[in-house]
């Protein structure tokens, strides 16, 4: 028992050191991904800022104008949650095709396959961080009150990164063997978006029950994204970090990352046969 545990640990150490030895490749792949994202568009990298802005505009139109929502600072509220959502959703969607869409690489060169979903996630993360820094800068420019808890922001981003990377590795591996996943993921992401308090506050579902279930509890507690989105808002504008929920999300994120890593390690040798 002890022996196999030791072997397991050394295997993990070996896997980590292998990926570390390919860090140069990971860097190149991230840059490649960033370059390719907007290669043939006129505005290029600007789109990573422009598209959340335009989406925010749509939400403002729909909710502020049509439904007269009373959330204060609605654009800030939206942006704070929308940016992490776009990052996470992009990671899942990108990760999903990261292996199946790179048959050319899988079949011809060896490298740790984890790098494929990881590079997609990291490229998205780079865009996300830049957009968020700009958002904070805009908040400062418009003299919107910020709180000291903003120092936790990098930690939450890191947590978000681990969560997204884990999820991307899981879907990347599973999609190789079961292509049905891509259709499920499409629907799943749509549902997930609505079940995450991005354009609404949790207050509107408080004490709402559906089929006898406490909606607030289900949506909020079982959805790591809900925690993350509200965490971003809390540290930014409320000066508060819900430790307990965040800790749960951390456990979920680490578990997903471990699972994704394990699946990749365990099954990646068969990718070239199937892809």
């Amino acid at each position, binding site marked *: 028992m002890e022996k196999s545990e030791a072997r397991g640990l050394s295997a993990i150490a070996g896997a980590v050191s292998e990926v570390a030895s390919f860090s140069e490749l990971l860097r190149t792949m991230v840059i490649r991904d960033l370059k*390719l994202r907007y290669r*043939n568009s006129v505005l290029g990298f600007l789109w990573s800022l422009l598209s959340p802005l335009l989406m925010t505009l749509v939400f403002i139109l729909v909710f502020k104008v049509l439904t007269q929502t009373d959330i204060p600072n609605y654009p800030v509220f939206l942006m704070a949650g929308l940016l992490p959502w776009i990052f996470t959703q992009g990671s899942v969607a990108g990760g999903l095709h990261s292996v199946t869409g790179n048959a050319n690489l899988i079949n011809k*060169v060896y490298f740790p396959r984890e790098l494929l979903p990881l590079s997609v996630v990291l490229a998205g993360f780079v865009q996300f961080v830049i957009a968020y820094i700009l958002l904070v800068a805009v908040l400062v420019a418009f003299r919107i009150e910020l709180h000291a808890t903003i120092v936790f922001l990098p930690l939450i981003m890191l947590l978000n990164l681990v969560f997204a990377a884990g999820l991307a590795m899981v879907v990347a591996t599973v999609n190789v063997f079961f292509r049905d996943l891509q259709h499920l993921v499409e629907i799943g992401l749509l549902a997930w978006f609505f079940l995450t308090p991005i354009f609404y506050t949790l207050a509107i579902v408080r004490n709402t029950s559906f089929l006898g279930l406490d909606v607030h509890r289900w949506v909020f507690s079982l959805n790591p994204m809900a925690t993350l989105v509200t965490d971003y808002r809390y540290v930014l504008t409320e000066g508060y970090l819900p430790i307990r929920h965040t800790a749960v999300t951390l456990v979920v994120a680490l578990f997903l990352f471990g699972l994704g890593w394990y699946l990749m390690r365990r099954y990646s040798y068969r990718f070239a046969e199937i892809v």
Partner: protein
Amino acid sequence: MPAVRFTGVSKRFELTHSRGRSMFSLLLAAFGNAGMDVEQFWALQDVSFTVEQGETLGIIGRNGSGKSTILKLLSRTLRPDEGRIEVDGSVFGLLELGAGFHPDLTGRENIFLNGSFLGVGHKEMGLLYPEIVAFSELERFIDTPIKHYSSGMYMRLGFSIALAVKPDILLIDEVLAVGDAAFARKCYDALAEVKRAKRTMLFVSHDPIQVRRFCDQVMWIEEGRIRSYGPARDVIQEYLQSTQGPMTAEVHMAPTDPAEEGDGPVKIVQSVLLDENGVETHSALPGETVTLRVRYEAERYLDDVIFGAALRRSDGLHVYETSTAESQGPVSVQPGYGTVECRLGPLPLGPGAYHISLAIWREGERMSPLHLLRNDLALFMGKPRGGHRGTTVIPHQWRVAAADSGVLPSVDKAVKPQPDMTSSSMSVPWSMPPEGLNMGRREEEYLGDGWHPVENWPPAVRWIGREARVVLTQDVARGTLVISACRPMHADRPVKGRVTVNGEEITTFRVSGIDFEDIVLPLDPVNEPTRLEIGLVMEETFVPAVVGIDPDTRELGLAIREIRIE
């Protein structure tokens, strides 16, 4: 430790027939329905071999025999189901086209991306970058996304990277079949260099000629198992014998596998092809000249020996055959070693692989040679950039007439056929005066050799030597020397030279037109019929080719219709 060691390696693939991997089949499986239509296919079964450091192993076999699976296992894109693979050193595989390239990235970006796949850092790759670009000859396109590249350009980029990063073990999978042959030739030379540098190579091909050229050891794979393993010559012979069975016998006019016959007192001990600089070569471009050098060993004195060489295309077509009997007749050999050389060319051969067979026989005993090496040497004819399709090279010249009246010129006038041959070796020199050529009264045979018939033209000959001499008789009543000549059509400049009479220069001439013109020279009057030795000395006999097919210089020559005294 050997560079590569396979021990009992097996690889299995699952062939799912058309249903694919879907939720439906998963559900079927979950409900215990075995109808998933999975067929197991052993791509490799119990394969064991070792490749020593610095060795070149060729792997041959039909498509689907498992050759490429071996390379994929080596490059770690596949993992064996059974057995062990040990590899000592870094491996880089040129597996198919554009391994690891991204079509949307530029050539430059792909070089660095490819480098990092090989574990070569950005900085290090930066040092190799100029070398890679120079070898690939893609300077102009290096900042173009490679999706706009041709397959040949892909190959060039991939190959250049592989050469530059110098992996310990280089895997090559049929890639050289792609792209223009001029580059393929460069690759062959580069690979020969890699081989000389004693780096380990694994070379996969279904073309035994390629394998034979590079590999010390050859492994023949059939249906996932090693059918034969050993020295290149033996295994390839075995392979060809099996593949050129009854089915292909009609296509192959003659065997192209190497074979040896004869055990006479004169033996070929070494044979080599040299390029124009005297460097060993396996390849040439159309129009180039190669020299075949054969070193022989004779046991005793013989005075009736004939050396011959025959050229065959890779499909067995007998292309050309020549021997010393044509020019020298039988030659004598002394006990010990000797060398025979044959200059072949300019080669009018189309792109492709050719073999040269060598033979030594005694006069009249051609059918039972002293020594015969069938298909001993391989010659790879390249394709110059931008030209040449087909099996042979026909000297030609395009002329396009400018349209002047809006009326299309007739085809005849638009494209003039080439009236004479570009090269001396394509027609047999005449030792006797050409028939139909009016040289006036003559008493002596022409001196020297090098006259060539000019086809499809008024009776004329072409002189390609530096100096032509002809002996004519001047009568008392005659006092004018007339030389009717023109420059050959392929020459792009006037032909200049001197005319001598009995060794004394009497004038210079310059022929610039492609229509015959008379050079008229007064002679000193004579009192009795006198023999005069008329000489034509060319100022230059070669011109650099400006247009046309031959990459090197061509013989200039002079077309002469008539030399007479009147």
